[in-house]
């Protein structure tokens, strides 16, 4: 049984409970009073419109629309500007809930696979934690080449002027490709993160069993 099937079975007809137990800050969802200030404060919702803005996602969770919520591109539009958090009259940590739902959808394999920000988010975390420090050049290259070599070269050409400007200003180092900045105790970092994932997984599993 896949992780998704097991979770869907366990929380059948109670998607709100699933979100409360499995998603970071998910227990805040029921506090939403549907005022829509979050949607009106969201820069990407304002510019290009989310499929389901935050207050709509909250209502959909309560209505049990599991498939629609977990597979939407909506929360991947979050720019982490925290405007919704500071304006929410009921003090819901909306930014964190959006990240939490996105992370959950990604974790159980429901998130849209080729959504660019989902891809970039995973890439960033792996890039940063591999050596303990971000390698900006490899990060950009990893993004441009996500759809293969041809698309990557095309994407790279589009970014040529931006990259050259940065290189001239000594803010992009081509030699980062062969190494770059890193932490000394990479072994310790890997061990500590491995442990953190283990603990987090066992806590979530305990909630599911409980």
């Amino acid at each position, binding site marked *: 049984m896949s992780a998704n099937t097991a979770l869907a079975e366990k929380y059948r007809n109670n998607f709100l409970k699933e979100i409360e137990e499995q998603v970071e800050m998910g227990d805040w969802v029921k506090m939403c009073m549907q005022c829509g200030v979050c949607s009106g404060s969201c*820069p990407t919702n304002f510019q290009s419109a989310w499929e389901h803005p935050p207050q709509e996602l909250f209502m959909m969770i309560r209505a049990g629309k599991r498939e629609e919520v977990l597979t939407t591109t909506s929360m991947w539009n979050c720019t982490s*500007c925290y405007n919704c958090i500071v304006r929410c009259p009921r003090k819901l940590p909306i930014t964190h809930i959006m990240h939490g739902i996105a*992370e959950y959808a990604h974790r159980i394999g429901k998130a849209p696979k080729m959504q660019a920000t989902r891809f970039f988010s*995973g890439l960033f975390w792996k890039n940063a934690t591999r050596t303990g420090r971000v390698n900006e050049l490899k990060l950009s290259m990893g993004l441009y080449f996500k759809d293969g070599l041809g698309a990557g070269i095309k994407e790279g050409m589009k970014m040529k002027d931006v990259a050259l400007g940065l290189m001239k200003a000594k803010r992009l180092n081509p030699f980062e490709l062969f190494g770059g900045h890193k932490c000394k105790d990479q072994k310790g970092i890997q061990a500590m993160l491995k442990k953190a994932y283990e603990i987090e997984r066992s806590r979530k599993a305990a909630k599911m069993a409980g």
Partner: protein
Amino acid sequence: MAKHEYAFYPGCSSQKGASASNYLTSVESMCKTLDVKLTEIPDWNCCGASIGYAEAGELPRHVLNARNFALSEQNLPGQEIVATCAACWLGARETRERLTHSDTLMADTREALKEAGLTINEMPEIRHMVEVLIEDLGFDEMAKHVVRPLEGVKIAGYVGCQTNRPFGVAGESFENPQYLDKMVEMVGAEPIPEYEQKVTCCGGALAFSEPEKAQAQIKDIVESAYDHGAEMIVTPCPLCQANVEIYQGQINQRYGTKFNIPVMYYSQLMVVAYGGSAKDAALNGQVIKARRLEEIAAKPVKR
């Protein structure tokens, strides 16, 4: 001994050859003038930034920040941690807040840290460099060192998101923070209090992954600065600086605009006003050169 000492968390983008290396250079010059001593936390690691959320989960993200706290406590006991990057500051502060409020999270974090041979006994204070300037030194102390006021230069103070929300600088409003305008005034330049895009989001990491969305926001930020007659924009955040500066060419192509406005760090303005050279202020790190500041930096200092 320096007047103020801190454990320093420079962050990935500040490193040599990275996107905000000019920020670090100017901060170092600024701190020299202000007698602020920053000691780098040995072997510090990335904060995970907000954009790491898909893979980070909750505990791994806090453990990553907690490692820096532990290293700071071990090597620089008793010192507050100062970050120059908005994301580093926010990430670390968030971890501090969560660990302080949850015994379970704290215990789990300690258990994970043990794997790296580290521990936390005391929760450090996490400060942004602008908090140090405003709260620990104050505007009077900052102004004392101005020997080359940036007279007649009109500057739009772009605060952005993450130094402003969700934590922000104490006493400031989320919708219309004043400190950056006050800093512009302090260096002798002309602020634009009616600049209405001062807390608009630059698109953050979406500038990489979904550039058309971020660039629509950046366009508003730059356009409004021009509308108010600004010659340059100033910001306290490395990602705001990069996003608002380096994509102006692409925005011009997309929208038919003719943007070409320099985007500076507050620290660069201060170094020039403090009598520093263009090199001290790392003005060569701008992709869009701040000619007016370069000219001022070449002038002799009035003492």
